[in-house]
């Protein structure tokens, strides 16, 4: 398997340091729907950030600004937990 590391080159236990690794783009797992936000309705409760299993909720401090679709798998959890109906799933 070319390009892969030798056993001796791996950190003990396979410890990963994020800044040194290529970012995995798991957004390709979505099957046709992506989340969309109407920011006027957002109250910055950050429930979506809390529930998102994939770091796809982008914040500036404690202010919700949008989605990182490179890692959003389209699980729809954010749209379900949003208390103000600001997030909706829409066709890609």
């Amino acid at each position, binding site marked *: 398997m070319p390009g892969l590391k030798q056993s001796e080159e791996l950190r003990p*236990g396979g410890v990963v340091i994020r800044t040194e690794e290529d970012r995995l783009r798991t957004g390709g797992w979505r099957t046709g729907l992506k989340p969309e936000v109407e920011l006027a309705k957002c109250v910055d409760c950050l429930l979506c950030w809390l529930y998102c299993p994939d770091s796809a909720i982008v914040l500036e401090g404690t202010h919700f600004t949008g989605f990182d679709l490179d890692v959003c798998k389209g699980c729809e959890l954010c749209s379900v937990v949003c208390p103000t109906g600001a997030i909706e799933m829409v066709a890609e």
Partner: protein
Amino acid sequence: MTRRLLLTGGEAVAHAMRQIDPDVVPVYPITPQTPIIQVFAKLVANGNAHTEIVNVESEHSAMSAAIGAALAGARTITATSSQGLALMAEVVYIAASMRAPIVMAVGNRALSGPINIHCDHSDSMLIRDSGVIQLFVENAQEAYDAMLLAPRLAERDDVLLPVLVCQDGFTITHSAEPVELLDDETVIRFVGDYSIPFPLLDTAHPTTQGPFAMPDYYYELRHQQDIAMEHALPAIDELGAELAHVTNRPFGALDPYRLGGAHTAVVCLGSTAGTVKDAVDEHDGVGLLRICSFRPFPEHALRELLAGVDEVIVLDRAASPGSRGPLFTEVAAALYGSGAAIRGHVYGLGGRELHLDGVHEVIDGTAGRYIGLRSARCLA
């Protein structure tokens, strides 16, 4: 100043723990390990150690908490026996793969069933292939010594594996003998500070630990444990020599006794070596090779020490139904092609005693493959 106290193996380990003063001890009681945590908890309650004892609800949780604590950056010790180790087994593999330098005291006890509380080595053998280091001690004094060596061995940058200090249940855990304790300062100096390369609580340098590994990396990560074991083997003797410098007691992966010029050698683990030493004293040309480090297995050193021996007798305190005892298969593999005749015997399951007479019969060649078993097949 060293002190001599009348202590059981369990108490000796608890005193070693007090002197090491680990940060975290997640533990669940089980016979015959219980005296270890019982005595240690008393020492902590009296302010003699400053450890956070986590009273978990099972051994599965104990080892899970131990992994979290050890990887967070806390020196961590736990203890268990038999069914506890069996319940823990799933997480023991994970501790080894995450390279968590946890120290664990084991009071070896037969696995159910039938349910039993007495000594054999079936619990340790259950996790033989888990990637943990297993040191089998001969008596309470060596249990104390091994506990002091264990953190140093576990925490070496080139090892980073859990270390199990295995003592025979009841025979060592509950039997009192004079044990010499080092003074606290000597222990503190010998053990040193806890340090691991990637502590989870180093939040300035965040890491992912225990990542998923697919076919492209699982094999390489599992092999890391093999490499760590290779480093651990000479480290046991190096640290043993350093420890002997302050204890005046030898400690090493192997303990040869009267092997010089011997034509026959008995090989065994644990407290049985005491009985075998008395027995071989009465036989010319018969010696003993006690194996302290079962994992890593000192294959080459064992082959060298037994090079001049015509016959090797392996005593297994664990059975592998459908095959031969685990120690026998190890020794036979190590001696393959050496020309020595190798005999294997199983003994002492579920705490069945092996007395001097039994060892004499083994050496004389009149014992069956299953020593002390009431069965028509015991002479087979």
